[in-house]
């Protein structure tokens, strides 16, 4: 079987620099895109202010289903953010080369989503004005305090892991972006931290990146394990499970992997980077996704087959709601549309090409979101004791307009962060791509000193 090859043509340093910095100058289509994101966020902000004024009564949550779309989205965001660790840390550390052009994209997704995950928790709070109580009266025994600790740590390490490999790109940017506004140049200057391309500086960056990559693995595992414990530490049917930690972690890799495929497609088309994010990379990501989904499927079988076989009183009702009841459509979408069918399809080489990959990744990510929804809501809807003597709305849950608006603000906010980062800094490490093309540090320094940069002509 012929392998899809990575290298077709050799790229010169000048081509690499031009290709990767072009999106930082050419802002065609940026204005409507930003306008779109900001108006979605505007609606979300207005809705949140409305919620602050009138209390959480404006959501559909009530005494029984007391966690809803916000908490589901929170887990979804945390899950998506986990991919930064998988791609740049795990795969990077074991020396997998094809991740070079997508590692930074994964980091951007991680940063954008984890920051907004923290905010969603605040949106869900009944008294956000008392947030400082967590520091004043914090109880170390509460999983929420653990979550807060690991989420902030993950934000910090992710940010460093994004910024550190950015440093060697700064000399390129300082040179290429000299025609750009002053504030951008100041940023580039500040973030270069005095980097001038000496070999020991490269060595130091590589070493520090490696240390951070090692550090982020336990933190990233902790962040999603602790998130799963928000549920697993309670004696509720459907949550009272000992495999929730690894179950969530593997599920997170699937969601994040799909998000990376979508972002890869968007950047390769919109930023005209098809030479860098090639079919080879989609092929590799497709294979990786199959592996991740198989592991996740295995956990799903364990999580549902074991109680489903026993049908213990209490659990039976929950299982039946998922298998055949009110949440059956979502459940089977998750299992079939989000796992089994994508696994089968991605086994075929043709399906790992960019466009089929994109469609499959979208199906997976919708499944991943549904999954978070049916983790949270059906359990709350089936407490141990019956729900009685309350209004009819207490028996059901479907998110209200306010909840959707605030959640969409979070999604737009995460995409906004990714957009801003992609418009300020190259989405791939120029220096690492150059190194992979066999360009030496001396050549790079020479290029930065007096290299020839001709836009457009050379690239096409």
């Amino acid at each position, binding site marked *: 079987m012929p392998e899809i090859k990575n290298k077709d043509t050799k790229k010169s340093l000048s081509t690499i620099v031009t290709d990767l910095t072009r999106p930082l100058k050419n802002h065609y289509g940026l204005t409507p895109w930003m306008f779109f994101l900001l108006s979605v966020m505007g609606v979300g902000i207005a809705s949140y202010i409305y919620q602050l004024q*009138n209390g959480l009564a404006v959501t559909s949550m009530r005494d029984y289903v*007391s966690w809803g779309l916000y908490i589901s989205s929170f887990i979804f965001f945390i899950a998506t953010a986990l991919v930064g660790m998988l791609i740049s840390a795990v795969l990077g550390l074991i020396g997998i080369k094809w991740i070079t052009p997508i590692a930074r994209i994964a980091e951007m997704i991680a940063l954008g989503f984890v920051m907004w995950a923290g905010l969603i928790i605040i949106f869900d709070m*009944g*008294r*956000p004005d*008392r947030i400082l109580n967590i520091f004043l009266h914090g109880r170390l025994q509460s999983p929420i305090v653990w979550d807060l600790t690991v989420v902030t740590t993950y934000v910090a390490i992710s940010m460093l892991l994004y910024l550190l490999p950015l440093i060697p790109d700064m000399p390129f940017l300082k040179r290429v972006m000299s025609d750009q506004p002053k504030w951008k140049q100041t940023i580039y200057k500040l973030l270069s931290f005095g980097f001038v391309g000496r070999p020991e500086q490269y060595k130091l960056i590589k070493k520090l990146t490696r240390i951070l990559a090692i550090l982020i693995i336990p933190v990233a595992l902790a962040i999603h394990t602790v998130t799963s414990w928000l549920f697993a530490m309670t*004696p509720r049917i459907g949550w009272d499970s000992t495999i929730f930690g690894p179950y969530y972690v593997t599920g997170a890799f699937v969601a994040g992997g799909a998000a990376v495929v979508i972002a890869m497609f968007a950047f390769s088309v919109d930023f005209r980077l098809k030479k860098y994010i090639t079919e080879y990379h989609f092929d590799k990501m497709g294979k990786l996704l199959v592996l991740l989904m198989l592991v996740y499927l295995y956990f799903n079988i364990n999580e549902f087959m074991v109680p489903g076989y026993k049908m213990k009183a209490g659990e039976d009702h929950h299982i039946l709601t998922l298998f055949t009841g009110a949440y059956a459509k979502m459940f089977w979408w998750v299992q079939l549309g989000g796992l089994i069918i994508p696994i089968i399809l991605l086994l075929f080489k043709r399906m790992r090409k960019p466009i089929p990959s994109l469609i499959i990744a979208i199906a997976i990510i919708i499944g991943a979101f549904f999954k978070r929804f049916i983790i949270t809501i059906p359990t709350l809807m089936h407490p141990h*004791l019956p729900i009685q*003597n309350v209004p009819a709305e207490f028996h059901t849950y479907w998110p209200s307009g306010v909840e959707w608006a605030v959640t969409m603000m979070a999604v737009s906010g995460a995409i906004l962060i990714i957009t801003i980062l992609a418009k300020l800094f190259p989405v791939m490490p120029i220096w690492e791509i150059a190194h992979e093309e066999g360009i030496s540090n001396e050549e790079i320094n020479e290029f930065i000193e007096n290299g020839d940069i001709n836009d457009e002509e050379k690239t096409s």
Partner: protein
Amino acid sequence: MNEKNENQKKKEFKISRRDFLKKGLMAGVGVALTGSGIVSAFDAFAQGGEKIKVLGPDGNVMSVDKSHLKEIGLKTEEEMQESGREGIDGKRFVMVIDLSKCRNARKCMSACQHAHQLKPEQHHINVLRMDRAGDTSPFFMPKPCQHCENPSCTKVCPVDATFKRKDGIVLIDNERCIGCRFCIAACPYSARIFNWADPKDKEKYEDVEYNIELNVPQKKGTVSKCVFSANRLREGKLPYCASACPNGVYWFGDANEDAVTNGTTKETVSFSNLLKNNAAYTLLPELGTKPSVYYLPEKDRLFPFEYKGQSDMEDNSHSV
């Protein structure tokens, strides 16, 4: 006897001193000072004739002379918090609910809602219609907070807003609660409610100081729950629900004393014998929460199960 008297005086002194300190008149009073003369001298400081608003036993706002409040030793919100968080020494409060007596009068529910500023859909205690297997008759089951010995709810609270006192009562401090609702998610008995919007009669309670043992005034964006009427227990009274029941369903008392009193008949019996002789059980014992609320089986009922004109659970198991 003499020693006991001394201790009591010390206690009184402690309460008075707090007030004394607050007035800024402290001038090097020795710690060992005891004796009735000094206590009454401190009492004199508090006789200002100043009126303040308090919540009456039935939840109504009343105006009382400040010096009267002193006798209980609860004056400021801070002091109520302090004693409220600590609990009552030497007690372990328990409730026994006799299911064979409950006829769904719902006087417990309304007394509770009245005392705790709750809306009609908010239940600290909820009378549920239960059905065991289908071949036995359905029955009514009042369900307050179970005040577990191993509570799932207090464990998960990130800010110590809900906690267990030494007398076994699980309280919620709605001045500290951040509204994350983790405790609601954790409670297997669905005993907790949330103030999704402004509480009932918000304006009426605006100036009332928060009494943690009564959990009033309720606050928007915070969790609320059954508190075993901790404020009434301090006065030696039975909880609102137990006192309101016309059918003798509730027994309430102190397990350390091994005595429980019936809320309707006021009869006092041995707690352990009551459990032993009636095959008492707790709800969801398999979860290991160890509730302080015990149930006596729904045996020998001389009245039919009837709810909204129906004698079975067919259509009303999930209706309002």
